[in-house]
């Protein structure tokens, strides 16, 4: 500090340094004692709001955060096809060749395990969002993958009956401590089955077999079957073949299965092998399509921007993000329409609600209360009932059109199209959201003293000037509050546009609902929802900058 003058705070500190801290009655420093009292107060306050805070966190923030997280989450690909995605990482999609045999080999193992776990169709429907046809490709392959592995299984079993029996396998693969633990457990339904543990020397000589057998064991365990007696999957035989064909040295092994392993090691050279690249093409030609592999590779990472790109009508391509073809662009247009129509609805609410609120605020209390009930009455009626009522009112053979025809305003053969289009949505939503505009306006207008208007007039203002220069500026906070309420509610509306909106009057939320409940593409729904949330927050921020959030009043 260059200035030599001391602030009061520094003075106090200097005093303290000279005389020691000021003490409270109990001899403790006053500062500490004060801090403690304050802390206790804060803690008590926190405890009082804790139930609400926890409630909001658990029932509101956490689910929303979880849902939004889905817009980038993409673990399913690498979880379901771990080996394939690792092998595929080095493949270059632009080379024009299909992936090397190792990839198909890995695909066989992953696909087999996924099929047993019934996870392959799930992945198929996930990837089908990105490339049409993957769903049936995976479903079809799941049905056939069992046959591919049987080639190895049959040969091992023909070689020696030892390989047919699940008990021989578990005795060979399991560690001594696991086997004795299994003996103690002895199929007891009430106790938990011990978790499989592989034998050390087998694990080091036959790594692939051990890895796949362990997956098999954990699957059997999760199905609550007995790992000891269950016959292993065909893919375990294929893995054993791989290990032996790769020259695993089983000569040093002893114990369960050692003799059979040595016999098999000598025999595998003569085994018939499976060309998985051809086998998968045999299931479906699409396995030799570059596009399929490109999609799997593009969506291998645990997180993806794919959903967000889709939400703004873009897609991933080998050369980075690009716009979707013209005939599939939908979302940006829907976002734009949602904003535009919400604005129109907000303005109609202001236009219709302002005079009503003014009358309510200026009538004697008894009449005002009666009218207030009329405003609130629709509020207490079910949303669906109100919307369906609009359907009856607005359709071409409906009340409004019938009246207009009867009055001779429109001809019978050119009745107005008031529903199943934007007009319908605007009319119905303006009506439904009107109370949200009237109530804040009313509560603000109630606080404007009528004497101000009289004073303005007595000073020579015309009715219009008195209103526009004196009354209106004071009611702006009510308009602000009402507009925010109506606009934010409108932007997320979905039932009313769905029922009366036809095709030109639907909102982005209808698309979100479709992806949540029909297409099950929750990732895309989450991305659309996240964008919608960001837009609302952005608008709120802009509103605060332009009008000022302090200028918003919800009540007197």
């Amino acid at each position, binding site marked *: 500090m260059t200035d030599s003058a001391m602030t009061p705070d520094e003075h106090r500190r200097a005093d303290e340094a000279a005389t020691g801290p000021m003490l409270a009655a109990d001899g403790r420093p006053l500062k500490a004692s004060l801090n403690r009292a304050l802390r206790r107060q804060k803690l008590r306050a926190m405890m009082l709001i804790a139930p609400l805070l926890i409630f909001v966190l658990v029932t509101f923030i956490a689910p929303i955060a979880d849902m939004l997280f889905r817009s980038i989450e993409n673990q399913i690909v690498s979880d379901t096809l771990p080996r394939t995605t690792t092998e595929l990482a080095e493949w270059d999609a632009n080379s024009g060749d299909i992936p090397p045999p190792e990839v198909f080999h890995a695909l066989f193992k992953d696909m087999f395990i996924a099929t047993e776990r019934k996870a392959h169709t799930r992945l*198929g*429907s996930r990837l089908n969002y990105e490339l*049409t046809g993957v769903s049936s490709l995976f479903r079809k392959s799941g049905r056939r993958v069992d046959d591919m592995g049987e080639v190895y299984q049959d040969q091992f079993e023909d070689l020696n009956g030892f390989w047919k029996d699940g008990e021989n396998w578990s005795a060979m693969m399991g560690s001594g401590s696991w086997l004795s633990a299994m003996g103690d457990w002895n199929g007891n339904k009430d106790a938990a089955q011990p978790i499989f543990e592989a034998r050390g020397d087998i694990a080091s000589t036959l790594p692939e077999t051990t890895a796949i057998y362990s997956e098999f064991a954990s699957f059997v365990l999760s199905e609550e079957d007995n790992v000891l007696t269950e016959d292993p999957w065909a893919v375990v035989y294929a893995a054993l073949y791989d290990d032996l064909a790769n020259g695993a040295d089983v000569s040093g092994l002893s114990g369960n299965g050692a003799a059979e392993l040595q016999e098999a090691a000598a025999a595998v050279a003569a085994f018939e092998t499976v060309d998985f690249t051809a086998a998968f093409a045999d299931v479906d030609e699409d396995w030799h399509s570059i596009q399929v592999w490109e999609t799997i590779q593009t969506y291998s990472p645990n997180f993806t921007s794919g959903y967000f790109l889709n939400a703004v009508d873009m897609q991933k391509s080998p050369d980075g993000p690009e716009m979707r073809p013209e005939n*599939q662009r939908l979302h940006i247009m829907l976002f734009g329409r949602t904003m535009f129509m919400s604005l129109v609805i907000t303005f109609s609410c202001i236009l219709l609600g302002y005079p009503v609120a003014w009358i309510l605020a200026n009538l004697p209390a008894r009449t005002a209360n009666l009218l207030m009930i009329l405003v609130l009455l629709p509020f207490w009626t079910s949303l669906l009932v109100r919307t369906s009522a609009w359907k009856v009112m607005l*359709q071409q053979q409906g009340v409004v059109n019938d009246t207009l025809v009867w009055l001779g305003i429109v001809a019978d053969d050119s009745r107005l199209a008031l529903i199943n289009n934007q007009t319908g949505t605007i009319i119905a939503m303006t009506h439904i959201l009107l109370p949200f505009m009237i109530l804040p306006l009313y509560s603000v207008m109630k606080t404007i003293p009528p004497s101000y208007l009289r004073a303005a007039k007595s000073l020579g203002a015309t009715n219009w000037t008195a209103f526009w220069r004196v009354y209106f500026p004071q009611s702006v906070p009510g308009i602000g509050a009402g507009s925010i309420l109506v606009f934010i509610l409108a932007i997320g509306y979905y039932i009313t546009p769905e029922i009366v909106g*036809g095709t030109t009057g639907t909102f982005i939320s209808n698309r979100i609902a479709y992806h949540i409940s*029909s*297409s099950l593409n929750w990732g895309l729904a989450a991305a659309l929802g996240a964008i919608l949330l960001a837009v609302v927050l952005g608008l709120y921020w802009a509103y605060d900058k332009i009008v000022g959030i302090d200028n918003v009043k919800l009540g007197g």
Partner: protein
Amino acid sequence: MKLTKTLLATTALTVAAGMASADGHMASEMTIVSWGGAYSNSQQQAYHNPYMEKTGVKIINDESSAEAVSKLRAMNEAGNITWDVVDVVAADALRLCDEGLAMEIDADEMLAPAPDGTPASEDFGDLLVGDCFIPQIVYSTTVGYRTDMVGDTPPTSICALFDTEAYPGKRALEKRPINNMEWALLCDGVAKDDVYDVLETAEGQQQALDKLNTIKDDVIWWSAGADTPQLLADGEIVMGSTYNGRLFSVIEEQKQPVGMLWDAQVFDLDGWIIPAGLSDERKARALDYVYFATDTQRLADQSKYISYGPARLSSAPLVGKHAELGIDMAPHMPTDPENAKNTFLYNYEFWADYRDDIDAKFQAWLAQ
């Protein structure tokens, strides 16, 4: 003090009641999910009531079938499945099966054989779609028209939908590509057997949309099954697509001036699935219910209350008269030979693959 006591007592009572109901659920209650309305009523009469009488199990109805897929997924993620048996259309059953949310079914082991001993898998035949689906009824999506608005020549072909000169006026079509795309191609000169081959290609999809484009301004798009019957009854539309059971009720029960086409009706299936991951006890009971509710007699009984065809071959001869109207139900079944001269079987595999892709194009086209 008194308040505290009352509160405590209430809490204790609530907890006790909650536990009792939880126990009760395990012992003698099951929740069955269906579509509501006349359809649920037909199930109540034909399946639920006799089953409750026979076993003493209390059946709780939940009308959430329209959101079954997403709700089951949410339940599965929450690890708390509260439904025991769920009524869904076959396409949803396929999705649930793909997602691992529905239990796989072995028809011969889990379902009753026909009275003559034919195993269930043969009795249901091709209708056993996917691995998890237990078929119940065959319904069809077809077209109804106002008899007083079509002049002297009522339509006989599905292509009347696209003929705005002979049949001016609004039409109602479902707000999704399924069925509409097939009909569009059919009326654009594509042979019935080639429809899905054509629809696989981008050009074929464009061709269907182009055909639909010729009537786009005349179409009201519906999303709830009750829309078309209401629009027909109000005279808002000259014709519209909906389920055959809804048309039956408009024509025969409400006596509206409405006629219906059977031409190019699209067959679809509705049936049960059992959610995956039920406890052994609940699974056993769900299977017991399904065994009972899908036997030959029970399926035939349902057609007394609603004009949907039983999914078993062996049930067809047992279809009788409507429970209240007393009219013969057989001629109103979509599967009746007279009605089934020109039909279309919804291609599940195709739509499971192409649904997302074509839907995106369809919605983009709608919004233009």
